[in-house]
């Protein structure tokens, strides 16, 4: 996709473009459109096959500024518009189903009014605050006085199915395992799932509001807790956005160390998930082996970087810890050994017909469905969407490294597990390459607030897929707006689709193979 082609197509469709800027939100190009043209611009984007990636709103003097991030061929485009107080914005949801929940989130938190949004129900807001209160508005306090106990959310109007023999199964928010909370509503006939509806938002902690007024360091700490299993990737995306806003270039060694940590994080999570997927279909062998490898792996992360999950190691301007010279050699050897062990275990798994029987064709997301939902990460890659920021819109240090991107079309649990196994090997090779080329020098550039209000975009390939983070700083260099879009925003809806027609007992394994972050999407 070229930005020029998009602008050309908009003009041809008779849309008045109010200006474009290729600098304000590097590497994206911003395109301003008038609010009445908002949906028409999305139709142009859809016709050009752009992927709808994110939406966030921001309060400005006389209304809301709304941003929509689109991607095509590794080029990013941010559509922006201004909606006056009391004015309604045409919804993107009828054009791009992926827009559904992000738009409802903006409606709940900022009072964005949406014309013709097909779903009037609340999303992030449960019963903790009333409909007319929009907590992200500047006039709403972070800590309102006199809040009583929060009522339950049991009046949420779930979609109903009617007919003979249809049963409804409610699950959650407290699940029967060590897992984040959320609610799932199944409609089933016998064991076959007709429909699954997710009700999330249970772990909404007000992250966007908490960010307001923080300094750069404070924001990085918060970003590292958007989703604890992606602490490196989210902190990196936030720091990248901050650094772009402030015009700061972290030293090369810091960038390499960030990538080392990010690849370690990817491997750790994939190890855990492959084991958990196998365990869910009664193949405890894999769980035992892979959790053993994962524990050794996170211990090595702690030895090298001082924290098992590497939390708070990515900081504005660079990283908080250096890698000792000896540790590099140990890490390279460990990555090689791990890749070999995993390959051996995967060979055993592939040899098991009973495992194949449970995982193949289970929870299938067809490539067309994945494309429509804009699914990223292993969910997208297992369903024909071969997109990876590291390869397709590369940032340092990946612009110097070959990044292989596995891709399958089967779209089932087996394919998602296979992508993860492939990615472990690829990341292990990347770790070796990063260690071989690790530059010398400092690991942190001093932070300077930009002299004037500024904004920045961070785009990082986390282990779940693309993370997009928007940051706006005020004239004192304090955070005025922070929006981290976890890849889970795009893969939670995929879970609903891929479960249809499967049996209820296969839900855990389907869910595990997608492994959406609750915290990352609830915010």
């Amino acid at each position, binding site marked *: 996709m070229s930005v020029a082609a998009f602008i050309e197509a908009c003009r041809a469709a008779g849309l008045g473009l109010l200006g474009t800027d290729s600098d304000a939100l590097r590497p994206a190009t911003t395109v301003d459109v008038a609010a009445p043209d908002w949906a028409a611009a999305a139709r142009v984007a859809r016709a050009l096959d752009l992927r709808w990636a994110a939406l966030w709103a921001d309060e400005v003097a006389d209304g809301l500024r709304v941003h929509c991030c689109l991607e095509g061929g590794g080029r990013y485009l941010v559509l922006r518009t201004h909606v006056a107080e009391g004015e309604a914005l045409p919804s993107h949801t009828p054009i791009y189903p992926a827009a559904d929940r992000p738009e409802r989130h903006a409606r709940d938190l900022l009072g964005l009014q949406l014309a013709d949004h097909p779903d009037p129900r609340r999303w992030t807001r449960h019963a903790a605050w009333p409909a007319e209160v929009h907590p992200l508005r500047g006039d709403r306090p*972070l800590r309102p006085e006199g809040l009583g*106990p929060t009522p339950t959310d049991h009046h949420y109007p779930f979609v109903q199915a009617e007919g003979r023999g249809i049963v409804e199964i409610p699950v959650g928010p407290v699940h029967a395992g060590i897992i*984040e909370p959320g609610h799932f509503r199944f409609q089933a006939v016998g064991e076959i799932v007709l429909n699954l509806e997710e009700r999330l938002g249970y772990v909404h902690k007000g992250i966007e509001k908490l960010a307001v007024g923080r300094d750069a360091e404070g924001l990085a700490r918060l970003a590292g*807790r958007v989703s604890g299993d992606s602490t490196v990737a989210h902190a990196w995306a936030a720091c990248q956005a901050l650094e772009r806003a402030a015009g700061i270039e972290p030293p090369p060694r810091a960038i390499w160390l960030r990538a080392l940590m990010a690849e370690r994080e990817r491997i750790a999570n994939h190890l855990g998930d492959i084991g958990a997927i196998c365990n869910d279909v009664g193949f405890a062998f894999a769980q035992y082996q892979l959790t053993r490898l994962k524990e050794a792996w996170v211990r090595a992360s702690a030895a090298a970087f001082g924290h098992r999950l590497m939390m708070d190691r990515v900081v504005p301007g660079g990283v908080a810890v250096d890698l000792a010279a000896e540790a590099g050699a140990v890490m390279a050897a460990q990555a090689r050994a791990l890749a070999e062990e995993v390959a*051996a275990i995967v060979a055993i798994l592939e040899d098991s017909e009973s495992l194949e029987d449970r995982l193949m064709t289970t929870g299938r997301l067809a490539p067309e469905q994945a494309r429509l939902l804009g699914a990223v990460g292993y969910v997208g890659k297992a369903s024909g969407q071969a997109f990876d920021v590291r390869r397709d819109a590369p940032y340092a240090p990946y612009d110097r490294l070959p990044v292989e991107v596995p891709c399958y079309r089967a779209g089932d649990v087996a394919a998602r597990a296979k992508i993860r196994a492939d990615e472990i090997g690829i990341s292990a090779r990347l770790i070796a390459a990063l260690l071989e080329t690790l530059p010398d020098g400092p690991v942190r550039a001093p932070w300077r607030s930009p002299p004037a209000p500024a904004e920045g975009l961070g785009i990082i390939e986390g282990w779940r897929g693309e993370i997009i983070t928007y940051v706006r700083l005020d004239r004192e260099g304090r955070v005025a707006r922070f929006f981290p879009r976890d890849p889970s925003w795009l893969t939670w809806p995929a879970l609903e689709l891929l479960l249809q027609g499967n049996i209820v007992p296969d839900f855990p394994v389907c869910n595990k193979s997608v492994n959406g972050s609750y915290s990352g999407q609830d915010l």
Partner: protein
Amino acid sequence: MLRLFGKILRTGIVTEAPPRDDEIAALGAEVKGLVQRHFGGSLAIREVDAGSCNGCELEIHALNNPYYDLERYGVHFVASPRHADVLLVTGPVSRHMEAALRRTWEAVPAPKWVIAAGQCACDGGEFGVSYASCGAVENVIPVDVRIPGCPPTPRDLLAGILALMRRAA
């Protein structure tokens, strides 16, 4: 099938006992002794994520890996609060989880104990109290033991479980 078994046998090395960890073994031995004497040989924990970033969950999961293998000390995680002796709660309690946490606590038969695991559960951590968060677990239900750390390591968690049992014994 034979090929599978052959491979498992040939890969025998991967099923070797994990490296010894004397500190964990010592903590575990004491836990096991207390479980035997005071909890009829088995301590059942129900984990509740009441708003965590999921970092704490990763470390709680790790307690079940072969390095720690919590079950060998008689401590296991259960699916229902009705089967639990202890609630292990993580996260600042999000206001959306407030009612669910209280109800889960009510469902645990007495005598019952609550462990607040992680900085957020102890004092609200990075999130504190806000329109969306009640902060510390003790702002919603009574807490017996606090395990600080962001997240607490599996070792910290094991030590915290031990601290609870010393108190409860």
